[in-house]
């Protein structure tokens, strides 16, 4: 259908049979790729070739393929999601590569994200952090009218900025310490800036930061790699806010 030139690429892909397998890099060739292929569609093509030749296709996480579900999670040439501004892997298009390029593809690497297979890792630690208290403890039903709680627009916008997080874990993957500070900071901040979340703010920040440590995430050393890795552009100001909330909680 497409009349564009095609390219041939060398892929060096992390293959790992299971959690206990040491894993290694394998080299593949991606042929007939156009600039309109998304990165994952390029991987689809490589997988089709592998299946035809009777080999096991590369296993990778993906779902919505429109940059919102947060499922896709590959490190490309050392950068989570390929390092393009505000872009998930599924939105990364092959026009950013050149014919003959060599591309390293690896899974998220962090202690808290053990690898399940090939490029798939286990991110339930992020769920654990949320379960520790990233919510307002309201019941279904029996709540006041939506307009009974007035929220100034700047606060609503600030909460929305934090809530844009898709929970992909790129911040952890990009962090040299495997820290989940940006993820956790966004959760703490989202609820700290709006009245509904204030009642539980102190307990929440304590519980979430404890959960973060228990899950095996590292600590923040303010490299700000997380912010550049984040496909939604979540700002490190939310880490600062969490630190502030944490300090406040110590004296409340």
């Amino acid at each position, binding site marked *: 259908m497409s009349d564009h030139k095609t390219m041939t690429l060398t892929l060096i892909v992390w293959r790992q049979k299971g959690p206990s397998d040491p894993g290694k890099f394998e080299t593949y060739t991606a042929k007939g790729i156009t600039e309109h292929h998304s990165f994952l569609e390029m991987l689809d093509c490589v997988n089709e070739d592998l299946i035809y030749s009777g*080999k096991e296709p590369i296993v990778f996480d993906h779902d919505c393929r*429109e940059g919102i579900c947060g499922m896709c999670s590959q490190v490309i040439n050392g950068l989570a999601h390929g390092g393009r501004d505000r872009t998930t892997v599924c939105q990364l298009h092959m026009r950013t590569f050149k014919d003959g390029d060599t591309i390293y593809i690896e899974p998220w690497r962090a202690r808290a994200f053990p690898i399940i297979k090939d490029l798939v890792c286990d991110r339930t630690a992020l769920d654990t952090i949320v*379960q520790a208290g990233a*919510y*307002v403890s309201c019941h279904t039903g029996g709540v*006041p009218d*939506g307009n009974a709680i007035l929220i100034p627009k700047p606060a609503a916008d600030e909460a*929305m900025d934090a809530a844009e997080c898709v929970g992909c874990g790129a911040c952890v993957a990009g962090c040299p310490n495997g820290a989940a500070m940006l993820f956790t900071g966004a959760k703490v901040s989202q609820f700290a800036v709006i009245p*509904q979340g204030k009642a539980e703010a102190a307990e929440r920040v304590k519980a979430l930061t404890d959960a973060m440590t228990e899950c095996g995430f590292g600590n923040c050393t303010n490299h700000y790699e997380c912010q550049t890795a984040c496909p939604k552009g979540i700002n490190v100001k939310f880490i600062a806010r969490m630190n502030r909330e944490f300090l406040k909680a110590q004296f409340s």
Partner: protein
Amino acid sequence: MILDGKCPTGPIQQTWDKHRFDLKLVNPANKRKYNVIVVGTGLAGGAAAASLGELGYNVQAFCYQDSPRRAHSIAAQGGINAAKNYPNDGDSIYRLFYDTIKGGDFRAREADVWRLAQVSNNIIDQCVAQGVPFARDYAGYLDNRSFGGAQVSRTFYARGQTGQQLLLGAYSALSRQIKLGTVKMYNRREMLDLVVVDGVARGITVRNLITGEMESYAADAVCLATGGYVNVFYLSTNAMGCSVTAAWKAHKKGAYFANPCYTQIHPTCIPQAGDYQSKLTLMSESLRNDGRCWVPKKKEDCGKHPNEVPEEDRDYYLERKYPSFGNLAPRDIASRAAKEQCDDGRGVGPGGRGVYLDFSTSIKRVGADTIKERYGNLFEMYEKITDEDGYKRPMRMYPAPHYSMGGLWVDYNLMSNIPGLFVLGEANFSVHGANRLGASALMQGLADGYFVIPYTIGGYLATVKPGEVKADHDEFKNSAADVKAEQEKLLSINGNKTVFEFMRELGGLMWENCGMARTKQSLEINLKKIPALREDFWKNVKVTGTGAEFNQQLENAGRTADFFEFAELMCRDAYHRNESCGGHFREEYQDQGEAERDDANFCYVGAWEFKGVGKEPELHKEPLKFDNVHLAVRSYK
């Protein structure tokens, strides 16, 4: 058989309140003795699991993703409707009810729709209390916008990510219950069978997607909230993992499938770029507020750069055909008009499958900055995918499958014809009729999960003894063995075509012959070709690896196998429905391009009973009665 939806009678305004009072209650101390399974954790499933857990039931929730937060409800952009009437512009529960019935082309139950409109207001309150960051005005009040052709401003939104924010609200409520221990969450599990014992739904068989093991879970009630089936077209706006499998397995165990031919095709999606493409991306409908749709008048202009086509050679076909609604014609109509132009050989872009959405007039009128302010993120998304600048040249758009109005048949209590099996959200057929209005899908999912199922499931559970069947029952063993046998078969074929190839082929057939427009002939072609292709699939598919490991090929193969069986039913339903209504457009039944309903013969819900693969299913009808809204022709001319 004539089906009974068990709708309450009497004045429609009191139906839900009266019904709630009539439902039996489960004693608080007894609730924890009941096990409830919820499959799917989108808006409907997530909200249901959280609410049922909070009530005190023992809930087990399942999703195929690695986290309940990733369900495809997350991708909804536009907003959620509610009859709050905050803008004081004449909205009411009755008007939302009326709009939904009419928008659905009079193919939905009045009582269900009334209930939806009634609880829509509670949903907004609930989400605000959860901390969902809805848009606010400077005084701090909730903001509304108009959406999807409604004449009132009733849509609440959170930037372009309303679905995401509502889902995260439900996910946070669910997470709270998981922490409290009332809900046990099972990630990366795919439901592959419904276990029915003596005619009652008693549990499910799931595959652990990491280890490949078959697992059995027993419960006193099973809730399916497993979404829609438009991935039967292969290319759609759904996520890659969305499938008909859970609903189809329930159907094969006896649950009726209602109105499968009602599918919604969204008019503004980014066109397909090549054969390798895996999915289509939707661009919010709001773009049509300022964009003008056109194609070249002359076929030879189609290859030219759009800016080189002179004004007089452009055909603004929506403005020409629908002078009063123009570019804002409803989804089904705008989609069909685009297809018509492309079929006429005047489409643009790869394969001639695209129309222009041109902002140059608006940019001249209000300036590029204003357009950027309104749609900046959409232009950015368009450029990311196509590498074209929508400010400088018109965007290319083409319709794409987006939502399925049909689904498993349920009564007013959201219970299917199998006792103990409840179906929620997009997976059921209940409220959208033949066409869904914008910003109504989120409303339905949350209504079912937060405010309907918590009541109606109690009415059922109060009539059954808890824990009567355990997971060691023979039926569970048989079910697991059957599923395993099917997987072994798929793995053993070792043919020469991949699962993707088959799915592409099936999707192509469905899109071509059972897509935006259908005819008797096209459906006959499909009814012949699909069984043949299915047979080929079972002979020639190649699935690598084993069943006892993380095997995405095997997952896809199973889903594709179910799509093959389902596609035939969908075509059959479309074939039998000799009328056009909403998303179901039969070319034979039209009045100058407009859908022509046949209320005398087809004013019913068509629910199909499974009789075996390749065997003709049996049709059951549930007549639709309209006591509050008068049947009328939808016209947008």
